[in-house]
């Protein structure tokens, strides 16, 4: 039938145009990068098992002078304002650090924070990183600290908690009422760039981009101020889920209403078709 042929031609040219301005243009403008890799290959893996009791001693002696561990009732020694002005950024709470960060990453971070976070373009001898290196500890002691941090995590952190601990020191999520712990002016002077509010990031960047970006920011944007935070795959999924739950809050409603709207229009179309056939029978 002629109309089918015309429809096919219209659809063909529409599809070619769509392909050109969407998938093809995107593939040209955003060259492919390797997907997120949670093996942290550049960091030497831990090859000893840690001792929890010794880890506790080490953490109490070295870490809680700056860090809080709120689930153990250990509050930060300084107010956030004082910490931000002293260090440039508020030190993270360690309540879930042993679980949300990769074990080998944590060990690598303790030894060489700037190297592990991929921030050598921002920090060096001239501008030291707030977190000092603990490379003077032995491999065994590093493993002990990691084992202790892992051991203190009693329950699985919620998506929001993972976000707050891993991202909330710099990033706000204002559509969920979360304000970055460090004021943006401090972050700007500390890292050289303001940390954007991430309420809409799930829509502006999409989940696929975010998963690679969070895993390794410098892979996506050269020279970016954002550190590699070393999240495990599961925690990163929790962060992205949380971002989606805030930035695309109506997704479930959209997807269920979609079926009803399409169904309604399909039935309308069918009835309209039958009516058309009946009316045109008289004239054709």
């Amino acid at each position, binding site marked *: 039938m002629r109309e089918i042929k015309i429809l096919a031609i219209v659809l063909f040219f529409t599809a070619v145009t769509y392909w050109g*301005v969407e998938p093809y243009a995107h593939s040209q403008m955003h060259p492919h990068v390797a997907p997120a890799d949670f093996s942290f290959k550049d960091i030497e893996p831990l090859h000893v098992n840690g001792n929890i009791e010794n880890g506790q001693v080490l953490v109490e002696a070295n870490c809680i002078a700056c860090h809080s561990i709120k689930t153990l009732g250990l509050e930060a020694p300084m107010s956030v304002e004082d910490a931000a002005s002293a260090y440039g950024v508020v030190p993270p709470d360690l309540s879930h650090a042993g679980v949300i960060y990769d074990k080998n990453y944590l060990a690598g971070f303790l030894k060489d924070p700037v190297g592990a976070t991929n921030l050598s373009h921002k920090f060096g001898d001239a501008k030291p990183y707030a977190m000092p290196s603990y490379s003077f500890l032995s491999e065994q002691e590093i493993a002990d600290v990691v084992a202790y941090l892992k051991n203190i995590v009693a329950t699985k952190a919620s998506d929001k908690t993972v976000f707050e601990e891993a991202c909330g020191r710099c990033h706000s999520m204002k559509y969920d009422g979360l304000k970055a712990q460090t004021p943006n002016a401090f972050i700007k002077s500390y890292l050289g760039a303001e940390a954007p509010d991430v309420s809409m990031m799930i829509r502006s960047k999409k989940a696929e981009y975010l998963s690679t970006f969070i895993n390794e920011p410098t892979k996506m944007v050269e020279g970016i101020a954002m550190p590699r935070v070393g999240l495990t795959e599961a925690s990163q999924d929790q962060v992205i889920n949380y971002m989606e739950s805030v930035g695309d809050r109506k997704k479930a409603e959209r997807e269920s209403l979609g079926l009803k709207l399409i169904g309604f229009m399909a039935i309308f179309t069918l009835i309209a078709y039958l009516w058309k056939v009946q009316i*045109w029978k008289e004239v054709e």
Partner: protein
Amino acid sequence: MAEIRKSEGLIDWLDQRLAVKAFMRVMMTEYWIPKNINFLWAMGVVLVVLFGVLLVTGLLLLMYYKPDINLAFDSVNYTIMQEVEYGWLWRHMHGVAASATFLIIYIHLFTGIYYGSYKKGREMIWITGMVLFIAFSAEAFSGYMLPWGQMSYWAAQVITNLFSGIPVIGDDVVIWIRGDYVVADATLTRFFMLHVVLLPLVIIVVIAVHFYSLRFPHVNNQESEVLNFDMESKKFLEGRKKESKVVPFWPVFLSKDFFVVGFFMTVFFALVCYQFDFAMDPINFEPANSMKTPAHIYPEWYFLWNYEVLRGFFFDIGGMAAMDIGLIAFVIANIVFMVLPFLDRNPMNTAPAHKRPVFKYWFWLLVCDMIVLTVYGKLPPTGVNAWVGFVAAVVFLGLFIALPFITKHEAKGDAQ
């Protein structure tokens, strides 16, 4: 005054006061449409439906939108998208309908070109249609500004800056349009006014003129057959419906339109709920930031061919700056379709393109060239891309320069 008698019912009561029966006859039941048309002729009604969708959803969005650079982004992305019940639906419908409107306009426009519907007394239909296209373009551009996202801001910056190419007064015109030295709050509020009041009014008026201009030369048909509408409609009214070559707008023609509209709206809602991102640039979900230029700045897909003509001329030719050549080409591209009826110099041939020996190549070349321009209008203009864009822009202009010669030549063939 006519004599008013006791009415026999509501319709009669209205008929005595508003002549609704005569009105219905003229507008609907005795407005004659050729029988020999295909679904492409339903695109006008699809556009009317889409315009209705845009109007209604636009009014709903207007209740919550704040035309202020400090509030606009959050009023759209938080208040409307998250707090207002079904606000996301109105916004997605509005955004997708805007994009879909242009797709249908292009199909409508190419249908007109293919079947020669811009010729032989139908010039005013064509010209008012092109005026509508320009009005819709302005409407789309002013609306794209309103969410005050990154692309809204930078697109406005780039597009308003185009006017600086006007000789002598260009720079002042840019400031006059922006209401400020840069795109800022004054720009947003005036674009808001244009988008929600002035341009919709213009569009409604021009739609009315477009419909009115259809009434005398009548709608064209698939074979571009010249019909005697008086004779054919008489047959229909006498009951010789199968023999008559025309049908009334209501209910016969509209019954087919309802089916086409239903089919289209099914796809439309699938897009609204599952594939809205084709009509919403992700970069626009980042708030406008005048300190941070996006890596790639490009307009919405329906302006890409135009944009590529503008930037296709990327090197100076014969002492003329690339920017000036591009601007001239851009202005030509925006008005050249308007004068199409006068560029087609074959006075006899209003046949569909497939029956015209040379014109058919011209038509399909134009379609392909515009698609190439559209695709390359989005790609970064570097290396090979820049040259493809240049060639496609030259071909585009060349096609319109060649049209009078081609059709003149065709006319000679027809005369023999």
